[in-house]
């Protein structure tokens, strides 16, 4: 038996070896490398060793860069709006579709955009947003409103991206809400019905408090992924004036792979990572400790 235990320790490590090597090469090294780079001036073409250390200059440059500030503001705005609208709508539709007739079909339809490439979604919506030949303005005109310059008006473009993102992400969150809804024991509702609580009251007093952990989880993961958004704004926002829908991923991509300012891009990536971290902590705090524990 002792031998078998030793075997298991040995096997434990050797089965993990691929993952360990992977995380060394593709996680620990990059994080350390990124951190070092953020204090250097480097364009990727010269040897990394020879790149000079320039202290905090990259960080100062960033804070003076209007485009970076705009990317920061856009991303924050996008993340908060997209996540909150998606969650409210997803919860609403999860409750509506749950126990409705043909619920499997409805869920399938709402979920379809989640498996569709974001690049494809952005291209389709790019056509729908076309001010002349697009379907959206045709609908607006049909109900007597004026059409919008969805993607070229800097005051509207970011909202258009958010609209598309909500459309694309709704079904995913809805599905997770549905799973949690089905986990709520029927007895709770039976008891509430005996007390005369139905409809909205039932939702407010029973469903919502019990969904709190799911809500917490979806907000945290939603913010983390919204914060990294690239595909939709990059594809939809290319015609917006003065890069008015630039996001932080897009900014990092451009500074690194078009301007070849690796130091500045790394500094930006690091600042944003810290920002993500803080936002996640705030969300977790906001919902209170019981949320997380209730979750586990």
């Amino acid at each position, binding site marked *: 038996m002792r031998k078998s235990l030793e075997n298991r320790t040995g096997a434990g490590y050797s089965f993990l070896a691929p*993952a360990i090597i992977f995380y060394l090469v593709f996680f620990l090294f990059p994080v350390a490398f990124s951190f070092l780079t953020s204090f250097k001036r480097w364009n990727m073409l010269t040897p990394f060793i020879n790149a000079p250390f320039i202290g905090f200059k990259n960080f100062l440059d960033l804070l003076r860069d209007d485009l970076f500030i705009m990317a920061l503001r856009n991303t924050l705005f996008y993340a908060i709006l997209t996540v909150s609208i998606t969650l409210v709508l997803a919860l609403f539709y999860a409750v509506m579709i749950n126990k409705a007739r043909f619920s499997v079909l409805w869920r399938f339809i709402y979920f379809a955009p989640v*498996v569709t490439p974001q690049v494809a979604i952005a291209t389709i919506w790019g056509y729908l947003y076309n001010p002349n030949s697009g379907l959206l303005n045709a609908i607006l005109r049909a109900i007597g409103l004026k059409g919008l310059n969805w993607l070229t008006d800097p005051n509207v473009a970011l909202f258009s991206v958010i609209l598309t993102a909500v459309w694309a992400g709704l079904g995913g969150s809805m599905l997770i809400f549905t799973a949690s809804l089905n986990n709520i024991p029927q007895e709770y509702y039976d008891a509430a019905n005996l007390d005369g609580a139905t409809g909205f009251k039932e939702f407010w007093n029973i469903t919502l408090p019990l969904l709190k952990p799911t809500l917490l989880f979806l907000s945290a993961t939603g913010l983390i992924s919204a914060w990294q958004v690239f595909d939709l704004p990059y594809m939809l926002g290319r015609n917006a004036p003065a890069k008015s829908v630039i996001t932080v991923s897009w900014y*990092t991509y451009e500074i690194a792979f078009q301007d070849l300012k690796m130091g500045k891009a790394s500094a930006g990536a690091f600042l944003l990572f810290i920002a993500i971290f803080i936002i996640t902590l705030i969300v977790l705090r906001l919902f209170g400790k019981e949320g997380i524990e209730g979750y586990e």
Partner: protein
Amino acid sequence: MNRDRKKLFWETFRYAVIIFGAIWMILPFFWLFSASLMTPQELLAFPPKILPSHPQWQNYKEVVKRIPILLHYKNSLIVSLSVTISVLLTSSLSGYSFAKLKFPGEEVFFRFVLSTMMFPVFIFLIPVYYLMRLFGWLNNYLSLITPFIVSGYGIFLIRQFILTIPDELLDSARIDGASEIIIYFKIILPLLRPALATLAILTFIGQWNSFLWPLIITTSAPQLTTLPVGISRLSLAFATTETQHLILAALVLQVIPTAILFLFLQRYYIKGFVLSGFSEI
């Protein structure tokens, strides 16, 4: 009576809302398919047309002729399949190790794996690109595959699944003298089939749709262009020309494989998706 009317009102409201939403969800897909059969003039018509007057099926023939979309297909397929197979292998090995093989440092390392999922992608772009250049992989598939061969989510998913396998089953095999590698192949892998199916389809679709990393890599290696990158370049190059209706045909061709996969493996995909919603933070 009053109660019935109230109920009827609610049911009407419910289905009206559901159908309204469903129309919005379907409309862009319907439009895409319909518009892919239009002539460029119809596509830009004012007021917009919903259906083509004569479906232009030759759009599809033309797109295959004028755009290297078959090459993009091949690239996407090679990359997505390679990543999926690697992730299945590394996740099941690591998942088994975490779930059933006790060893020092297990807990700490598992926490570490979970925490890696919180790191945003933009931290890794520059260093991993640098690594790929260092390894000399920039102009072959390895640069698109290797950065994704281990998945924190995959390890987590498989570990959770293996935890439900009773220890007695493994112990009796051990008493019979089976080594851990035999147990992994003969007992664990067969039992894992549903979990692996879930992970496979999630990984495959994720890779098939992946955009930012292939965009970076294929800037210097256009022969590796995958479908999403191909589409994005097309919509740039063709935006103002007479050929833009071809983008839509190309889009339909890109969306179809994931749609079919999802249609047939829906059950597995949804299970994995929902599970991802219940992993620890």
